[in-house]
């Protein structure tokens, strides 16, 4: 085992600082999910639209989001947009990248869920005098969210894990960024990142458990 002495105390002393980072991580992932879900619903509607001008951009978004690395998408937001004179902070770039990615994946989830809803329901809504938009909002959307709840939860976990990529564009306030900062000061890489890994694990499990409880509460008949 070489002649390395583990210094865990140093890592534990930094624990409160890392927890603050974990809050930023949660904040980014929740924001990215809110933005992602909103855009994903629009994309899902756009992909099945009759007009080609709606379908093409929505399809392009989904295919790019699903066929390139998340890290590439974050780089695109951070370095790429600079060519157009748009300079995003690491926080904004990370948020934009993850939201872009979430929207692409969630769109396909939502489309699958929508296909599971019988088309007759929409027609029933229309024949009750609802407009297209109202029927969609009151009949399709709630069922769609219900059917796709678990896959959406998985995407939330993905979003949490993806926030760790912020450190590659220089974000130093989220959990991975804080840990990297501490690491750069002391070079206790293993200790600090092991603690970070435990925190990530606990967050992921807590979110999963919370979603399960929420699902049991929300979706009982």
């Amino acid at each position, binding site marked *: 085992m070489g002649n*390395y002495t583990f210094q865990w105390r140093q890592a534990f002393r930094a624990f409160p600082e890392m927890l603050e980072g974990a809050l930023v991580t949660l904040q980014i992932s929740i924001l990215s999910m809110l933005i992602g879900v909103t855009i994903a619903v629009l994309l899902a509607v756009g992909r099945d639209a009759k007009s080609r001008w709606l379908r093409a951009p929505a399809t392009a978004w989904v*295919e790019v989001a699903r*066929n390139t690395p998340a890290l590439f998408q974050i780089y*695109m937001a951070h370095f*790429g947009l600079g060519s157009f004179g748009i300079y995003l902070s690491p926080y904004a770039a990370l948020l934009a990248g993850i939201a872009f990615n979430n929207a692409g994946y969630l769109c396909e989830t939502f489309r699958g869920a929508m296909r599971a809803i019988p088309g007759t329901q929409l027609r029933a809504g229309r024949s009750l005098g609802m407009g297209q938009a109202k029927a969609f909002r009151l009949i399709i959307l709630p069922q769609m969210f219900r059917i796709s709840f678990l896959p959406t939860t998985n995407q939330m976990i993905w979003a949490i894990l993806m926030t760790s990529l912020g450190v*590659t564009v220089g974000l130093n306030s989220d959990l991975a960024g804080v840990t990297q900062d501490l690491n750069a000061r002391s070079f206790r890489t293993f200790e600090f990142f092991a603690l970070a890994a435990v925190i990530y*694990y606990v967050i992921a499990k807590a979110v999963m458990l919370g979603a399960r409880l929420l699902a049991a509460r929300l979706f009982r008949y």
Partner: protein
Amino acid sequence: MFDTALTFNDLLFMLKGAGVTLSVTAFAVVGGTLLGVFFGVLRSQISPWAALPLTFVLDIFRSVPLLIQLILANAFQAIAGWGISPFVTSCIVLALYTSAYCTEIVRGAIEAVPSVTRRAARSLGMTWGQDLTQIVFPMALRVGLPSWIGLTLGVMKDSALVMWLGIIELLRASQILVTRLQEPMFILLVTGAIYFALSFPIARLGSRLEKRWQEND
């Protein structure tokens, strides 16, 4: 924007990076699939309680960011004094990461085979091994292959993270060029196009397989 200083040699440099991406992916997917099939069969055969330690360990690989896993593994091999190269470390970590997902796919696919079919095989006099290789695997393959293709593409995209350990794969190669040429948008677009060209046809193949095999059911 299209008046670029990117030369043919730079493009070759990026393609070489893409080659590294592909080789890391290949090692990870081959290793991860072998491990994943083994763990998956094991998990579907023994009781959930007996499999609990394995389930827990594999779950860690799915609940901790890959970047953190890579950093931890690299730090650990340095502490242990093994002197493994970053390339091998990344391949091992990615293979374990792949195996965690592959186990779930294999287990799900095996459990999708109706138990009456397996009992029928056994009552025809097939041994446990024959049942597994002649009945379960062919049927499970149809269920599992589309997700496995998705997993392979996912690993290829996630392999971009190995650049943190200093490996010059496609995305890192593009960063080196961006630093030199100062044309981030154009070079990143080329990078994205390469990733897209690698991933999109296989993704299409996967969804087509999925659709075709569902029709025959």
